C-alpha cells in the first residue's frame, strides 16, 4: 500500500501511507468503537425489557409511538440535511451549506426537545430511573444517545458559526465530512433503537 505514496510525498505531513486522511481514518475507527458502546446499552435493554420489578404498569406500553415516530423522522431527515450541506460545501456553495447545516442542527435540536419532553411525560407517569431494570436500561441507553446528539448539535452549530464568519470554506470540507460521519452514526444508532425499543411488539415476544 505504501507504494502508492512517493518518497518525496512522505516528507509532507499530510501525505500518508494509505493515501487517506488521518482524521477520517480516526473517525471511522472511533465509530467502530462506538458500535460496542451502543451495543452494550442496547443489549442491557434487550435483557431487561420485560423486567418491571413488580410494577407491570410501568412498561413499554407507556411509549407514545406516534410522537416518537415523528421525532425519529426528524432525526432521519437531519441526516439528509447533513449530506446536502456536505455536498454544498464541496461544490463551494457557502450559502447552501449554511442553510443545510443550520437545518440539520435545528432538526437535531427538535429531536432532543422531543426526547426531553418524552422523559418529562414518563417521569410524571411514575416511570423513573430507579423504578425497574427496564426503566434504568431505557433511560441510560436513550440518555447516552441524547448526549451524543447534543455533542453533534454543538459541532454543527460551530460549523455554521465558522461559516458565517467566513472561516469555513470548501477547503475545509473534510472537517464537515467527518462531523457528518459522526452525525449519521448517531442517526443509525437511533434507527436501531427505534425498532428495538419502540416498534417491536413486545407484548407478543415478551413472554
Amino acid at each position: 500500500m505504501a507504494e502508492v505514496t512517493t518518497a518525496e510525498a512522505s516528507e509532507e505531513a499530510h501525505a500518508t501511507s494509505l493515501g487517506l486522511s488521518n482524521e477520517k481514518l480516526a473517525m471511522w475507527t472511533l465509530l467502530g468503537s462506538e458500535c460496542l458502546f451502543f451495543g452494550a446499552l442496547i443489549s442491557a435493554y434487550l435483557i431487561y425489557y420485560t423486567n418491571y420489578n413488580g410494577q407491570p404498569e410501568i412498561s413499554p406500553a407507556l411509549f407514545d409511538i406516534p410522537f416518537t415516530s415523528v421525532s425519529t423522522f426528524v432525526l432521519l431527515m437531519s441526516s439528509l440535511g447533513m449530506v446536502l450541506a456536505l455536498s454544498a460545501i464541496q461544490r463551494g456553495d457557502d450559502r447552501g451549506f449554511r442553510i443545510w447545516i443550520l437545518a440539520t442542527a435545528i432538526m437535531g435540536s427538535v429531536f432532543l426537545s422531543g426526547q426531553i419532553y418524552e422523559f418529562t411525560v414518563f417521569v410524571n407517569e411514575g416511570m423513573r430511573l430507579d423504578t425497574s431494570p427496564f426503566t434504568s436500561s431505557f433511560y441510560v441507553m436513550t440518555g447516552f444517545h441524547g448526549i451524543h446528539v447534543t455533542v453533534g448539535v454543538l459541532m454543527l452549530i460551530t460549523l455554521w458559526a465558522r461559516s458565517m464568519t467566513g472561516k469555513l470554506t470548501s477547503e475545509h470540507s473534510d472537517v464537515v465530512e467527518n462531523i457528518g460521519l459522526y452525525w449519521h452514526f448517531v442517526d443509525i444508532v437511533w434507527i436501531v433503537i427505534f425498532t428495538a425499543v419502540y416498534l417491536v411488539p413486545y407484548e407478543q415476544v415478551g413472554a
Partner: protein
Amino acid sequence: MSDADDLEHADHPDSSQYIVIGIILAVFTAIEVAISFAAVPGEIAVPALIILTVLKFLLVVMWFMHLRFDSGWFRRLFVFGLGVALAIYAATISLMLYAGAATQA
C-alpha cells in the same frame, strides 16, 4: 496488499440521489410504524421490522456515509467493530437469558 484503487473522494452521489435515498428512508419508516400499529402477528412483524431496519441502516451507511464509494479501509474498520459487537453481545444476551438463569427447583 495494494490500495492503489482506494482513492479518497471517489465519485460521491449528487444531491438528487441523496434526496431519493431520504425519501426511501422516510417510506421505510412509515412502513415500520404501520406494521407496529396494524397488529401484525409477531412472527411476521419482528422479522419484517428487522429487515427494514437493516435496510435503513445500510442505506445511511452506504450512501450518506459514502462507505460504498470510499476506501475499503474505512469499511474494514467499521465492519470490524460492528461484527465484534454483534458477536459478543449476541453471546452475552443468550448467556444471560438461557445459561444459569434462575435455576429454581
